[in-house]
């Protein structure tokens, strides 16, 4: 009967594999039984409907089978989620406003900038909302499995009480909040400019009375890296959210933080070391306007190498620092 199949589908659609098959089979047998045992004069269709109504809301029945409720963002993270969402959306709106303001100074087409302001704000806020929600969804799912295995394997006891935070390992709340705001503003400005006024990423020269600009990047290639850039942004926000969650450096937090940092660094290096990213004519054009008596090509190659060294250096320093704090905390627990 179609209605029975639809009901069984509604209950079991969020399950998979063997569990799904078992619940389907059992539920079908139970409903058939309920129809058969109904001695009234009603048609089979009506009996089926009555049985289904007796079983009730398929979502609730599925929750009962699962034994737990499922959330996109559960009560454990909801307050934190609202908090971060406000900061991120605020920062995005602020960032886009600044980006378009700066962009309007450099572009001739003023109306383009102003008419696009509202739609940029709207899509920016929407993106901020979506990405923040996705990050929290991941945290929610991840924690769900962590907690389940935790409950099964470990009995709570007195030694599990967390240490009072130590000045050395404590993370003041202001640090991640400040980072989220700065990171979001920076990325919003960067992203806003990348798509509204990409010609701004250039070297500026005064030749006589004219201002000459030479693009630093190959804009099409840079725009093509948007997924990677968004990825780096999400990873930075994720690191800060974890800081708000843990509020101190534990060994586990330090390891997760370092892993995220390594992935973000690899993303950054993939972009920077891509030779197509840089404007191939930059050196020839620059030598046209600036009379330089040294080899500009060599200098630029050196600058690129130095950028890589500095990025890797800063990140290694941060990883060593947080791991040190994490290990310090870990030793103290012993």
């Amino acid at each position, binding site marked *: 009967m179609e209605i029975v199949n639809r009901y069984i589908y509604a209950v079991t659609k969020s399950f998979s594999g063997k569990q799904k098959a*078992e*619940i389907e*089979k*059992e*539920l079908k*047998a*139970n409903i*058939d*039984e*309920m129809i*058969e*045992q109904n001695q009234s004069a009603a048609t089979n269709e009506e009996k089926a409907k009555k049985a289904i109504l*007796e*079983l*009730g809301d398929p979502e*609730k*029945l599925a929750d*009962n*089978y699962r*034994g737990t409720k499922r959330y996109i963002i559960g009560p454990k993270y909801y307050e934190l989620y609202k908090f971060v969402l406000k900061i991120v959306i605020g920062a995005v709106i602020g960032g886009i406003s600044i980006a378009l303001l700066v962009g309007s100074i450099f572009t001739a087409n003023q109306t383009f900038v102003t008419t696009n302001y509202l739609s940029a704000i709207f899509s920016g806020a929407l993106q901020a909302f979506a990405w923040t929600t996705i990050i929290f969804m991941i945290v929610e799912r991840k924690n769900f499995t962590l907690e389940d295995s935790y409950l099964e394997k470990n009995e709570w006891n007195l030694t599990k009480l967390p240490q009072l935070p130590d000045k050395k390992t404590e993370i003041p709340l202001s640090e991640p909040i400040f980072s989220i705001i700065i990171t979001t503003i920076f990325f919003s400005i960067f992203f806003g400019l990348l798509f509204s006024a990409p010609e701004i990423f250039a070297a500026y020269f005064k030749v006589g009375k004219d201002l000459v600009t030479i693009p630093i990047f190959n804009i099409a290639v840079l725009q093509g890296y948007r997924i990677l850039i968004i990825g780096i942004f999400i990873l930075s926000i994720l690191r800060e959210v974890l800081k708000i969650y843990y509020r101190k450096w534990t060994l586990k937090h330090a390891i997760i933080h370092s892993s995220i940092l390594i992935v973000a660094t690899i993303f950054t290096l993939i972009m920077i070391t891509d030779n197509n990213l840089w404007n191939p004519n930059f050196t020839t054009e620059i030598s046209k306007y600036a009379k330089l008596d040294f080899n500009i090509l060599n200098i630029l190659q050196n600058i690129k190498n130095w950028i890589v060294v500095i990025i890797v250096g800063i990140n290694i320093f941060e990883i060593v620092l947080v791991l040190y704090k994490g290990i310090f905390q870990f030793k103290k627990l012993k």
Partner: protein
Amino acid sequence: MENKLTDEIYNSLVQELRRGNIILSVLSQLHIPQYGYSLVVSLDEKGVPVEPGTLYPLLRRLEKQNILESTWDTNASKPRKYYKLSKNGGKVYDELCKEWFKIAKNMENILKSQE
């Protein structure tokens, strides 16, 4: 409106009170094998109604916890999944019964002393 609200609260309190006894009631019926629907009927007849939407998932959970064991009977015209107490479940049931009688006695004392 206000009456309706207190009714709602009262009903949810009664439900809460009953919920704790569902498992013990179900286990008490499973010394002999029963399938889902027959259990719904027999509990209802004995004045302990349990909704099928609560009972079917509960049986599955208790099976996973090794308290019940099940067999599919495919000989009848319709396949039926029969549940009964496992060996371990029988022990658990006996212990729970003792606990329940203790609670019932203490509850009776505590409620009567207030009269």
